[in-house]
């Protein structure tokens, strides 16, 4: 057999692929340290379903001493491909960045291009964008809670509940854009097509039924003693470190920092909706999990208001050029509050049909900066839980 001793899931890393042949986490090579510490490689294939991600962990018994994440196993060269494609041609690739939330990825890219070229968006399209973005937030948070509970050991059942709700939302996405996951729906200046007939009524029905699912989940989870024992006090992130490390999204808000780009940047038409921003008090995994539940309730509020107020009209500005789109030379940085966190696109144009520099601000990568800080001193089993609560998606980390 070719590689004896090279185990896959949790095992001993023979030569540290990706972190260099000779790269060891042990700083000292003294015999006591060697005998005392165990260096293992968790990943890139492991049961916690976040994708191909690898962590080199140095253990003292079961306690983590050092942790270095290794990336690049899903580096698909999105930025380089975008330099060779037109602006519109990169839109389907943005779906595949954070493959759970394709609608918000599309919106972030469309926003950046609209900022670059100075395009405005009609009213109905803005409402459709808000509705689809909030529905994306609902299914993302539900899925995350399901995956986190699966990482804790509840093999399958909470994930089944979450996917049950997710399927309802994906049906609506398929009706409007043609695809369940890779929607490719936003365009520069609006949306690709108008909503089919009956879609709004179906969405209203879904929004009315969703709080029932949230109540069921909350009743099962909020006072659950296993959850409280395993998640409270685990992976505490202080507010100062979170701000300095560029952490955004629910992870930042769980540490008590009030920074929601929907309220800060006033992009889209979020100013018209009344919603609150939940904040956590402790910054541990339990806060991050429950915060997402609260955010889902706020999303329901936004959806109810948006579905009432949506006007009729065009969904894309008819004067916008879609073919042969060549914005003037310049640069723009557009960002939105995606369901996971701040997703930004930095575009530099040189007047031609492809961008000169196309950059995706990788939120999952930046949020992983603090992974080592969160995990030191915790047990190995907690590392999986902390990683689950950070809520990464590898398509975004590696692009």
């Amino acid at each position, binding site marked *: 057999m070719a590689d004896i001793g090279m185990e896959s899931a949790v095992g001993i890393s023979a030569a540290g*692929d990706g972190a260099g042949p000779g790269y060891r986490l042990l700083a000292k090579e003294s015999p006591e340290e060697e005998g005392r510490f165990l260096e293992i490689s968790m990943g890139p294939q492991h049961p916690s379903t976040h994708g191909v991600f690898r962590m080199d962990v140095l253990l003292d018994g079961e306690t983590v001493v050092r942790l270095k994440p290794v990336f690049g196993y899903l580096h698909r060269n999105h930025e380089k491909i975008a330099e060779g494609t037109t602006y519109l041609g990169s839109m389907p690739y943005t779906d595949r960045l954070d493959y759970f939330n394709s609608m918000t990825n599309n919106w972030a890219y469309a926003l950046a291009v609209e900022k670059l070229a100075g395009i405005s968006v009609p009213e109905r399209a803005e409402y459709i964008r808000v509705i689809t973005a909030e529905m994306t937030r609902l299914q993302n948070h539900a899925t995350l809670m399901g995956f986190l509970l699966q990482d804790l050991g509840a093999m399958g059942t909470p994930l089944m509940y979450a996917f049950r709700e997710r399927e309802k939302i994906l049906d609506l996405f398929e009706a409007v854009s043609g695809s369940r996951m890779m929607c490719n729906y936003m365009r520069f200046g609006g949306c690709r097509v108008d909503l089919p007939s009956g879609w709004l009524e179906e969405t209203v029905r879904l929004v009315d039924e969703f709080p029932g699912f949230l109540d069921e989940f909350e009743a099962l989870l909020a006072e659950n003693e296993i959850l409280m024992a395993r998640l409270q006090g685990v992976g505490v992130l202080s507010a100062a470190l979170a*701000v300095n490390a560029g952490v955004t999204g629910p992870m930042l808000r769980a540490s008590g920092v009030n920074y929601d780009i929907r309220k800060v940047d006033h992009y889209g038409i979020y100013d018209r909706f009344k919603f609150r921003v939940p904040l956590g008090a402790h910054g541990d995994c339990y806060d991050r999990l429950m915060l997402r539940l609260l955010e889902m309730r706020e999303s329901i509020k936004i959806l109810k208001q948006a579905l009432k107020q949506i006007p009729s009209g065009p969904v894309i500005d008819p004067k916008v050029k879609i073919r042969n789109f060549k914005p003037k*030379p*310049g640069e723009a940085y557009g960002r939105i509050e995606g369901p996971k966190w701040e997703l930004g696109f930095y575009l530099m144009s040189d007047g031609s049909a492809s961008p000169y520099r196309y950059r995706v601000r990788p939120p999952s990568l930046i949020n992983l900066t603090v992974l080592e800080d969160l995990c030191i001193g915790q047990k190995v089993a907690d590392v999986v839980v902390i990683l689950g609560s950070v809520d990464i998606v590898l398509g975004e980390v590696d692009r």
Partner: protein
Amino acid sequence: MESIEQIKLRIEQAIPGVILEIIANGSPGNPASIRVDPEHALAVARFLKDDGQLRLDYASNVTGVDWPDKVAQQTVKVLKMVDGVEKEFDAKVETREPGFLEAVYHLYSMELKHGPLVLRMRTGDRAGQTHLPSLTPLYRSADFQEREIYDLYGIIFDGHPDLRRLLMWEGFEDHPMRKDYAEPDDYEFEPTAHNQVLAKARRHYPPKASNG
């Protein structure tokens, strides 16, 4: 937030010897950027972070950009002696503007909820002098992003706690996002149904006359 000219003035007052340049942004409604010289970049960033009115404590995005050498060809008239008589000839002169690599930082403030301020740093050239100071000691969020710029562009950040490749494997030798990167040639022909359609269509057209 104050205007970019005001910020530039205040930085110049606070840090003596700093060289700043405002780079305009061709796209309307989007902010211009400030270019800092690498020697004073860390001091400037510290000023921006600690200043009471700015409090730019959140580095949102750290990007690398590649500007290759610009070669311009000009035709000039040159006087030369031919057989004792001065004559005018046309000569092609190549002017080469050296290229550079650039690191762009988007700074926001979470405390005061304003921004962005765009900071730029340029290297000397693309080959030997590709060192820039790292802002990771001030902004932890630049940690992985600067590693990625090192990996994909080749800018070496001095002062970075752990500068290794991030996305490509350690033995990899190129910097793939540069404009002159040659990707490995492993494209193979794969027949598709389209080829059969093309073959069928070809039968309707006369074959090209071969050049003798």
